[in-house]
């Protein structure tokens, strides 16, 4: 018999609340381990191959997560606006990271789900290349430096364009370009960890995922 989702979810939420209330007395490492385990438990239950959740329970779980996602985005925006109103300066970079990284991940997943691995990788490559190309050209003007800065994104656009015909080579090209970009943007290492995470999510991550998706599409013999 399939087990009830509501009871388990209630116990899980209760456990998290208790953990947060009593967690202050625990050593930090133990608290972190408990929190990771508590947050991973529902994911483990949902994504293992033989999940005990039926399709309606999965639908409810996904729908509630979807709504929660927008609530979180709304709360982050609320905090950012409050910070700005209180202090009169832009909120710290960690808030931008917390706001934008999940949105980028959502965008990438939905593109792959919508268009499949090969076309998804192509679309993501072209989208991010175009955005960054325009950003480099418009923020620094049409100078020699900005033309040099735009080279990786031009390469990214060309690779994305030809990925339909040469998925294997372009997939490898994307991955090599990702590694190259990490050296090209070595100055990122001077930024704080939050800005770095944001930048990695906006440039190398989509590229790396697109490269991986192209290689996977070749391995799975996905139709182009």
């Amino acid at each position, binding site marked *: *018999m*399939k*087990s*009830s*989702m509501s009871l388990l979810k209630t116990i899980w939420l209760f456990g998290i609340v208790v953990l947060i209330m009593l967690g202050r007395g625990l050593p930090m490492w133990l608290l972190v381990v408990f929190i990771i385990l508590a947050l991973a438990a529902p994911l483990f239950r949902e994504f293992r191959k033989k999940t005990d959740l*039926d*399709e*309606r*329970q999965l*639908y409810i779980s996904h729908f509630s997560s979807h709504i929660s996602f927008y609530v979180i985005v709304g709360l982050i925006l609320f905090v950012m606006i409050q910070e700005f109103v209180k202090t009169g300066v832009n909120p710290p970079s960690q808030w931008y990271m917390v706001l934008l990284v999940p949105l980028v991940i959502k965008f990438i997943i939905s593109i792959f789900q919508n268009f499949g691995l090969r076309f998804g990788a192509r679309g993501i490559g072209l989208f991010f290349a175009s955005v960054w190309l325009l950003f480099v050209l418009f923020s620094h003007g049409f100078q020699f430096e900005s033309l040099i800065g735009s080279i990786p994104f031009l390469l990214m656009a060309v690779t994305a364009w030809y990925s339909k015909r040469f998925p294997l080579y372009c997939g490898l090209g994307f991955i090599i370009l990702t590694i190259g970009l990490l050296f090209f943007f070595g100055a990122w290492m001077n930024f704080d960890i939050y800005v770095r995470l944001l930048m990695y999510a906006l440039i190398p991550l989509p590229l790396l995922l697109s490269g991986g998706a192209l290689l996977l599409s070749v391995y799975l013999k996905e139709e182009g």
Partner: protein
Amino acid sequence: MKNKIRHHRYLNNEMTQKHLAERAGVTRQTIIAIEKGAFNPSVKLALKLAQIFDCKIEELFELDLDD
């Protein structure tokens, strides 16, 4: 989408929702939701239900005029 699950349970020796849920591999709440029309099952689950009742899927489910 309309369904005749209640009718087919009756025809099958008044099969309980719990028994049907066990055979279909879902929860009783899911069977209740499908019977009420509050949840549309996947094609796979609809086929499974039709198989349990030994009938065609069209005999179990039909489109509403609004659908």
